[in-house]
């Protein structure tokens, strides 16, 4: 989260809304977002409805969830999907910014 907040202005400049989805409840989200001064949209998903819809993997061994990122463009098309293979497997912001620049510059490829 700190990694994303650091470059928040760059996301805003690129018309990107950062939306955090997690298994915690609303109170835990509110407390964490306030404590860390996070400017993002936070969606508590204790029933894991969106998590399941997007197929976030559950690591049965560690009983934790792997991080995942999906970049959705202005037409609602998924342009970048990253499923982490470990807790720290998160693409660097620079990589995400490059992708957003590409997405903003190029129309959706239609099959």
């Amino acid at each position, binding site marked *: 989260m700190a990694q994303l907040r650091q470059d928040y202005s760059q996301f805003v400049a690129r018309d990107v809304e950062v939306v*955090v989805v*997690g298994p915690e409840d609303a109170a835990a989200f509110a407390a964490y977002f306030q404590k860390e001064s996070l400017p993002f949209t936070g969606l508590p998903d204790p029933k894991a409805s969106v998590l399941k819809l997007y197929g976030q993997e559950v690591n049965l061994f560690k009983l934790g969830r792997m991080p995942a990122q999906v970049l959705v463009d202005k037409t609602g098309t998924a342009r970048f999907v990253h499923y982490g293979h470990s807790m720290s497997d998160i693409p660097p912001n620079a990589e995400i910014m490059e992708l957003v620049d590409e997405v903003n510059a190029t129309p959706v490829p239609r099959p």
Partner: protein
Amino acid sequence: MPRVSLNQPAPDFSLPDFSGKTFRLSDLHGQKNVLLVFNRTFV
């Protein structure tokens, strides 16, 4: 388990945010890109 495919429509959903305001993915279509971050736990 279903997964999102590249260059396919991202599944729409709506959920209340932590302040109770409804967020719907498709509301941002035509306006903003969205980076969905599936977080594990806040520790």
